[in-house]
């Protein structure tokens, strides 16, 4: 069975390490915060200028001056700091954020990512996505493996305008965990009950399939 949105987030959360500074994009990436493993501490960076994002507020603590990059009202966690957008992107561009998780329309075997613009549709803007992918070393892209019509989103070459070139090494989809190495996707894990054949069929870019592909495990 393909993973649910929550299970994709759970799988990505397994990549979190104690002491990580993490930037989570909008959508499934945001859910990763709900599955931080017990016994470790991570600090969430929100690019509008908050390091140490806490839970949503209550009716009593809600504050219009306290939002995250998704423009949602939030709180500051213990140990948080607040700063300008220039400082925030200095952290991001300077490579100080340990893990960045974001969604995408397409990725390809060269590590290119397209996530912000579909020609012919209204262009809303890239926000901070281009800075995040250009500045981070450790990026996980999360996305569905194929479109609703069954077309692969893991391609030989992205067809949409890029968000970043040659910057993606890890992809978690509803079917698999893959890494990108030397112009190929490498199948590392499959979702429980999903066959290697289905993943091969839904991966348009070059795919290396090791002899043994373990199933993901969830605690």
């Amino acid at each position, binding site marked *: 069975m393909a993973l649910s949105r929550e299970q994709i987030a759970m799988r990505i959360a397994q990549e979190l390490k104690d002491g990580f500074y993490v930037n989570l994009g909008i959508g499934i990436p945001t859910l990763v915060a709900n599955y931080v493993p017990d016994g470790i501490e991570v600090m969430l960076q929100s690019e509008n*200028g908050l390091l140490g994002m806490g839970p949503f507020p209550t009716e009593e603590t809600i504050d*219009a001056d306290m*939002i995250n990059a998704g423009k949602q009202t939030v709180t500051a966690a213990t140990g948080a700091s607040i700063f300008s957008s220039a400082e925030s992107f200095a952290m991001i*561009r300077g490579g100080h954020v340990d893990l960045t998780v974001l969604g995408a329309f397409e990725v390809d075997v060269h590590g290119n990512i397209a996530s912000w613009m579909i020609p012919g549709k209204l262009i809303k803007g890239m926000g901070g996505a281009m*800075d995040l992918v250009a500045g981070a070393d450790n990026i996980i892209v999360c996305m569905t493996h194929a479109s609703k019509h069954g077309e692969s989103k893991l391609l030989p070459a992205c067809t949409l305008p890029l968000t970043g070139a040659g910057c993606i090494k890890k992809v978690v989809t509803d079917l698999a965990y893959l890494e990108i190495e030397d112009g190929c996707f490498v199948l590392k894990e499959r979702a429980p009950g999903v066959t290697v054949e289905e993943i091969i069929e839904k991966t348009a870019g070059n795919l290396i399939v090791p002899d043994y592909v373990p199933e993901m495990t969830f605690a």
Partner: protein
Amino acid sequence: MSGFDKVVHSYEEAMAGLEDGMTVLAGGFGLCGIPENLITQIKKMGTRDLTVVSNNCGVDGFGLGVLLEDRQIKKMVSSYVGENALFEKQLLAGELDVELTPQGTLAEKLRAGGAGIPAFFTATGFGTPVAEGKEVREFNGKSYILEPSITGDFAIVKGWKADRYGNVVYRHTAQNFNPMIATAGKITVVEVEEIVEPGALDPAHIHTPGIYVDRVIVGTFEKRIEQRTLSQG
């Protein structure tokens, strides 16, 4: 002493000198930390053909969105403009120009502009449509694009507290783009919730030193929330 008294007492005075065709830099992220009343004053003045540099363009009927109603904005420089139906309509009709700029690049363009740096190299946007027509240079095996900085005729800023010297502190994440915007205007106008006595702000905690600020005005703010999200239970 009066040379350091930057407090003005009317919004007319605060925005005096704004003319058609000028570039206005506006602080804020979404609707958080936006100079609500200075925007309203621009609407009242009816100034046209403005180039506005701001991360977003407000929403329909609030924030910078109100300047679209009478087509006062000619060009927007922003990283994300998705929350505004009127914006979309004018863009598709060719009545409005937009220059989409990555958020970190926009912040740095303003920081550099205020700091006297005319351009800088960044990896952000290399290999994407943003890089089109821009100089590319390699440093240590990685490719970077040359991005020119931004300055403006007017900078409109939302602070929390200021003194009459123009020293400003911001409140929580309402800081966002405001400190860089404050440095990059020929005339920088800051509206705040409270003007405090000189000496009341700790000099070590000032976000924007008064040297960048030309005018300070106290206002009242609606502070509309864009995404009201609460903890369950």
